[in-house]
């Protein structure tokens, strides 16, 4: 268990966002994606983030994961003010503290499942043997040991996503950030992935933040927050209705 989790377990939040704005500029036009957003996420939580497309869910996830920087406000994760870190330090911080799971898996097509999982370990000082061992363990956790030598093109969507999860957990990160992890999967495969995420949360104490459009997926989380027009709320109905309406109109 890492120190950030221990701190949070002692009553501190693992993730703290204060007064966060995110503005994108397209030419002279400014698009306010997030405005004055405050958020605290305790360690060990499985948080679902829902909201309609363009509501800023992925942007929020990127800010928490240090993939992007806020236009204003502070992002503190595990006590580190990550929005103030240099690019090099932020990259090192990501390597150490963040595991990312993407909707479309984002595996390297030319590498086997085993080598994909080893990829983040290249940034450590582990020996080749130790890297292989840890990648094998991560693949074992996600139930893919028997497919370790297979390339992504020969794996099903569910298997690819499990490989993606193995890659995300292989460095034993503080945070698991999942952007629509079941968005590209059928119901059965999606359920298996959600089972896996739940198990990682419950059995290994991983803090998970999952962006999803899927109410069933969100139901697996211990808490769900809703984003609309850059604002967070805990009241789902109105937003769910909005989301369903938008979905029906094809927006």
């Amino acid at each position, binding site marked *: 268990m890492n120190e950030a989790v221990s701190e949070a377990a002692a009553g501190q939040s693992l993730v703290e966002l204060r007064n966060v704005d995110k503005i994108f500029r397209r030419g002279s036009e400014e698009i306010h994606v997030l405005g004055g957003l405050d958020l605290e996420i305790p360690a060990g939580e499985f948080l679902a983030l829902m909201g309609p497309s363009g509501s800023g869910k992925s942007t929020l996830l990127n800010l928490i994961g240090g993939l992007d920087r806020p236009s204003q406000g502070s992002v503190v994760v595990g006590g580190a003010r990550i929005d103030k870190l240099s690019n090099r330090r932020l990259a090192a911080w990501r390597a150490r503290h963040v595991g990312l799971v993407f909707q479309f898996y984002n595996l390297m097509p*030319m590498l086997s499942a085993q080598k994909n999982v080893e*990829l983040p370990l290249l940034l450590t000082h582990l020996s080749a043997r130790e890297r292989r061992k840890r990648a094998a363990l991560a693949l074992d956790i996600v139930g893919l040991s028997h497919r370790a030598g297979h390339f992504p093109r020969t794996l099903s969507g569910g298997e690819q996503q499990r490989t993606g999860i193995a890659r995300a957990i292989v460095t034993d990160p503080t945070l698991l950030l999942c952007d629509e992890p079941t968005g590209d999967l059928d119901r059965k495969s999606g359920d298996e992935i959600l089972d896996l995420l739940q198990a990682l949360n419950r059995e290994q104490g991983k803090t998970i933040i999952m962006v999803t459009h899927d109410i069933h997926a969100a139901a697996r989380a211990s808490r769900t927050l809703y984003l609309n027009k850059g604002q967070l709320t805990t009241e789902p109905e109105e937003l769910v209705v909005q989301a369903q309406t938008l979905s029906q109109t094809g927006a």
Partner: protein
Amino acid sequence: MKYLYLLWSNLRRKKMRSVLTVLSILVAFMLFAYLGAIRQGFSQGIDVAGLDRLIVRHKVSLIQPLPVAYESRIEQVEGVVDAIHQSWFGGVYQKPTNFFPQMPVEPEEYLAMYPEILLSDDERKAWLATRSGAIAGRGIADRFGWKVGDRIPINATIWTRKGGEQTWEFDLVGIYEGAEQSTDTTLFLFRYDFFDESRQFGQGQVGWYTVRIADPARSAEIAAAVDEVFANSQYETKTEAEGAFVQGFADQIGDVSTIIMAIVAAVFFTILLVAGNTMAYAVRERTNELAVLKALGFTDRGVLGLVLGECALLTAIGGGLGLLFGWLLVGMGDPTNGSLPVFFVPNRVLTAGIALIAVMAFLAGILPALQAQRLQIADALRR
């Protein structure tokens, strides 16, 4: 080293493109090695010319002869250790295309001046004992299939024999080897006394002198002193370092080095564009993957290094194989069938080739690598 697998895997993903790029780089470097050998052949002597040797020739041009009596006067100049004379015979063997250097010399003096010419004691004795005796280098002997004991007819283009006879016949008494790879083994050397008494005109004259000096650092001073001795005489001299003399000789057929360098530069520029284009495509196609690497924790500089590393690997494979194949091809033999005095890939060409691989890898990869370095993760993942 731990990233090598990743780089190698990236090259293997588009096999055809990688193979074609490697082949184009290979051809460029093979050409580089091959033309380097030809260039060495043309400029032979310049780089290996003795630092302690000077050449004394007629001030007007090499074609103008000098008196044979100059030898003893040159040897009296302070700093000169020894002086020998040589002359250009300019004959052909069997047909005009069989052209190679033939020179009448004083055997013992010549062999003492050029210790890089290795001749067995028996052959040396035979040469001294045979007035019509000649020795040939291994290269020219192999070219024409000569062996010791053969009688070699050379048709004169300048020096007819007394009575107007064009053909000179020599007894091949020895075949010399070169002490170094760069030693010219295409020379055909025969005795000056035989030549001088048999030629129809020009008795008592020689082509030029080779002078050994005691201290190479004083070469300019000694050269001036030699020229001073013959100033205002009928046969004024121009004394220069052996390397400069050989360069001037080579330049008579054109600036081959410059021509070769121009060809090589044009080929490399084209290949640079090919390799650069390949890398630019590779980076453009992999924008998303590069963003994922950064998301996983690879730094901007790390991603730059990966792209440059991939380009370096591609160039090293193509360039390394090209140099190897060029070297092997040169080893198969001289394309002129022995007209070049030497034909090998000098070490400095191989060293320059390796340096060029590094330069090409950098130049071809730097722009795509900088593009990859600047990639914003969130933007790239949205694409």
